């Protein structure tokens, strides 16, 4: 149990702090440049890849923080106001999709197998359903009051877009990054491949 907690929390040395910060900055940049708006508070963005990467390196809690801080910063620099409900929702999603090390996918050691991809895809669906189907709508209603249907609708749109990006773009990227890291580790010249 202790070990699980450790994997969840990650090791908080300077490297972790910096990596989370860089992750948050990257999140902010992607949100502002790479986003394609689809609905009022929702954009089709590749930024959600960031918590996956941070999670794979340092665990879900760092992923949560990278995502939450990144989202906050994106809101602050994007100037579309500051929305706690969405930031927290995103953070929760970051936590869930950042669970990678818990099921053995270690991108920076080059480990990402088909089984990991399947589990990852499931966490994406579950994570989005939970974050935007439960957390964000509840917070929205609690913070700003109002119509649950609309909030759900908006959350639904956001959730679908996120899931799509996370699965369709995320899995190839995770494979690509894992491959890069795997080969980078032992630089043995593969003579037999030479023709």
């Amino acid at each position, binding site marked *: 149990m202790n070990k699980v907690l450790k994997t969840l929390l990650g090791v908080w040395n300077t490297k972790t702090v910096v990596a989370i910060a860089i992750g948050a900055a990257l999140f902010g940049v992607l949100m502002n440049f790479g986003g394609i708006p689809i609905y009022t508070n929702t954009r089709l963005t590749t930024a959600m890849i960031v918590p996956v990467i941070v999670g794979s390196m340092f665990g879900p809690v760092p992923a949560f923080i990278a995502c939450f801080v990144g989202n906050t910063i994106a809101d602050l620099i994007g100037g*579309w106001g500051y929305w706690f409900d969405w930031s927290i929702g995103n953070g929760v999603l970051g936590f869930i999709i950042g669970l990678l090390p818990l099921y053995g996918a270690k991108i920076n050691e080059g480990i990402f197998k088909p089984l990991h991809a399947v589990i990852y895809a499931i966490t994406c669906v579950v994570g989005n359903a939970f974050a935007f189907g439960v957390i964000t709508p509840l917070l929205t209603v609690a913070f700003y009051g109002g*119509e649950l249907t609309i909030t759900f609708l908006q959350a639904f749109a956001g959730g679908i877009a996120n899931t799509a990006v996370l699965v369709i773009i995320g899995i190839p*990227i995770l494979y690509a990054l894992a491959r890069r890291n795997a080969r980078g580790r032992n630089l043995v010249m593969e003579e037999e491949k030479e023709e």
Partner: protein
Amino acid sequence: MENRLLINLIPGDTFLHRLTGKTKVRTFIILLVYIIMSFDIRLIMPLFILSIIGLVSLRPNWKKVKYFIIVITVVNLLNIVLFWLADPDIGSYWCGGGNTVLVSLTERLFLSAETLWYLSVRFIKMITSFMVSLVFILSITPSEMAAGLYSIKVPYKICTIFSIAFRYIPDIARDYNNIKVSLQTRGVELDPKKASLKSRLKQNALILVPLIITSFERVGNISNAMDLRGYGRGKTRTYYSEHEELKADKVFKAIYIILLLFCAYWIITQNIMPQDFRMWYPFV
């Protein structure tokens, strides 16, 4: 990119700018609570007016700010319209059951005075939330924000995340543009007019691998530079950007403490043990 940032990196010199990060962060958080808890125009309106005064007093770059104000107004108006479309009768629930129809388009689509009131309050609440955020962002620097968060007992490693993230956003944005340009010359099409949504997404994803790799490449160097200057050695730290409290800070302190007490009172009486869930509606 740093020109695109709304937040200033170097403190300005108006009254609000000169407050400490601690004062700004605490005031902002309490004001957010204040906005979130209330659905009452009598509470929101004064803050709305104050936030406008605050904004003007900061002497911001209006060109930049104007764009954001327009965007946020449009988005929220759209949101309001959607609310209305979803349930035109929503006001009667919140305003005591009345249903004074003003305009009726069809059987289902009508605008009642109550709904108009409800939607207006909601709109102003949203806009106020945005305005307060805007004033906060324009008045603070990332370092002050880190110091301010530290003052409310957020662990300093998390505060560092805020300031380091802001520090490297322009660098990463520059990388992003460089990578984009190099991919464009190789034939990647990012222009919405020339490529479909699907291919744009796919091409956007191409940027990600090099961007992720080059962004995280710097982690080692940055953390080394921080370790070499003793980062993380102590349980506490101080902030160069956080000057000593001035008279204005003390005045603000008194104000935000009173406000905090008021919020506590309001939440207990109105939100936790409400006598009446309805909002204040003067025309009952």
